[in-house]
């Protein structure tokens, strides 16, 4: 493994029956890089990330993450990485400090270490005043920032982030990216997937997956030049539309569930946030709590 590579992937492949979700992908990520992972729903991003985080064994190929082999050392990988998902990360019915203590514990930090990290974290995020408040009572932006900080509390080599800023207001989003920049500055590698194409531009390099393959891998500027596009959105559209079958993209594959259900099972917790998946049967003729009678 080369000195400053934190991830090395070679012809990594994952099949489900006769469907190939990830098709011989190869790439490297350097220590401290902010690496953007883009792709349409169903392109294979989630499967690829699950293999890299030790949650899914590949079918063939090779990959090293933080010096560990994904085939044989999946548990070791989990200790060296952080993971943050948009839909679930912190326990809503625990307080700020309880969540920090919980995750610190899971990541194997000592009691004293957790206490000092807690103070450091609360001060850095300027949320010392709400240390005993329940997560569910915090504004979304604060939750996001706290979730990120908890995901890196054990100073992992790499943090994987699955659509971390969905729905958050533009100012809070930028504050969040400040945290990412700082982490990268400290040498933490950040692996992020996003549907906000302008966020792809904050990354050092970006890869775009189409139908299980990596169809582009370059700096944002490089991609824009190569595709003659003014922004990553345009690059993405050009690539995705040039794929070998709109029919394929429309859903003849295993990853047809929307991101809401598929992307959030790895790692933390079991309960989906309240409201998710419960209101699947609303129709206009049915009053919803508080409606007129």
């Amino acid at each position: 493994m080369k000195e400053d590579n934190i991830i090395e992937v070679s012809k990594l492949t994952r099949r489900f029956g006769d469907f190939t979700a990830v098709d011989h992908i190869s790439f490297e990520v350097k220590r401290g890089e902010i690496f953007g992972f883009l792709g349409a729903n169903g392109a294979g991003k989630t499967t690829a990330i699950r293999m890299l985080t030790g949650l899914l064994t590949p079918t063939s190929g090779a990959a090293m993450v933080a010096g560990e082999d994904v085939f044989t050392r999946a548990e070791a990988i989990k200790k060296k990485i952080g993971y943050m998902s948009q839909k679930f990360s912190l326990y809503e019915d625990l307080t700020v400090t309880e969540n920090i203590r919980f995750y610190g514990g899971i990541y194997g930090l000592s009691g004293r270490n957790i206490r000092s990290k807690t103070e450091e974290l609360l001060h850095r995020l300027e949320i010392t005043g709400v240390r005993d408040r329940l997560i569910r009572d915090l504004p979304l932006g604060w939750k996001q920032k706290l979730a990120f900080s908890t995901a890196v509390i054990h100073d992992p080599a790499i943090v994987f982030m699955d659509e971390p800023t969905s729905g958050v207001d533009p100012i809070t989003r930028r504050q969040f990216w400040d945290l990412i920049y700082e982490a990268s500055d400290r040498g933490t590698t950040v692996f992020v997937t996003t549907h906000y194409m302008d966020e792809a531009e904050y990354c050092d390099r970006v890869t775009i997956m189409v139908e299980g393959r990596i169809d582009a891998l370059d700096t944002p500027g490089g991609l824009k030049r190569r595709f003659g596009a003014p922004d990553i959105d345009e690059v993405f559209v050009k690539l995705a539309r040039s794929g070998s079958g709109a029919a394929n993209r429309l859903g003849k594959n295993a990853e047809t569930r929307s991101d809401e259900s598929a992307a959030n099972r790895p790692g933390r917790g079991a309960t989906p946030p309240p409201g998710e998946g419960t209101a699947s049967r609303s129709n206009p003729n049915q009053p919803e709590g508080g409606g007129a009678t």
Partner: protein
Amino acid sequence: MSVTVRNLKKKYGDIEALKGVSFEVNPGERFGFIGPDGAGKTTLFRILVSLLLPDDGEARVIGLDPVTGYKELRRRVGYMPGRFSLYQDLSVEENLRFFATIFNTTVSANYDLIRDIYHQIEPFKKRRAGDLSGGMKQKLALSCALIHKPDVLFLDEPTTGVDAVSRREFWDMLDKLKATGLTVLVSTPYMDEASRCDRIALMHRGHILDVNTPQGISGNFGRELWAVRADRCYRLLKALRSFPHAGSVFTFGEQVHYTDRRDDFNPEELKSWLESEGLAQVQIEKIRPTVEDTLISLMDRQEGGGPPDNSATEFHRT
């Protein structure tokens, strides 16, 4: 007027979701509500389609009061809620047939309206709705919301969580609908979608901050806006923030959008200063503000210029 709203208010316990919003939508208009989570968009839409009672204020949708005229209203509006809410265990065509039936019509009666949309998912018509990809679910939900030929269509964040290509396709479909004269109210957290609306309302924390055409909104930015680039983005960001005359500093992809506090700002001076801070390839150009720039500026002003999210009672999506 297709929709008229005056001083609408709604609270959930202590949390004020809508703090007195007012606006009007013209027939045939495509009217966008742009704002992040917690702005009040979903609450507003639920009130207008009669699923929620307001605490105060009034509203009329195609002349009907959602509180008292809800029966007639529900026959004549189309609604696509923020989360996929069709029957997961019914197939695509079963869902469509179901909605046609409860609106007392048939799939063929108004098929023209949904043809272009439904065509794209027709090959999968026997697939269970729960097994569709995000983009396909959208198309099905839109078809079901149109099947009874509504007079007004309410789309609550129809493109959230869906990839960029599907998002574009969805807006292309909306373009085609426009030709039919249908009034469309759509909410979105994506700023770039604002430019595809006739007029937009910027929303934040229960308030409407401004209502105008997309170009008009940016026209109200009020100051000169500059795009700054350099070789290292994060270092540039930190440097600009420490510049003594910095007004606002916000990243936008590979550039930083900057305003200066002085009226006689000279970009050359900033360029030299940045170079003296060790940055290379510095470029500074004047640009037209986008909707996002304007929303950030309005939010910043609303917060009194301090960091947002200070109040722990801010409403957030549950």
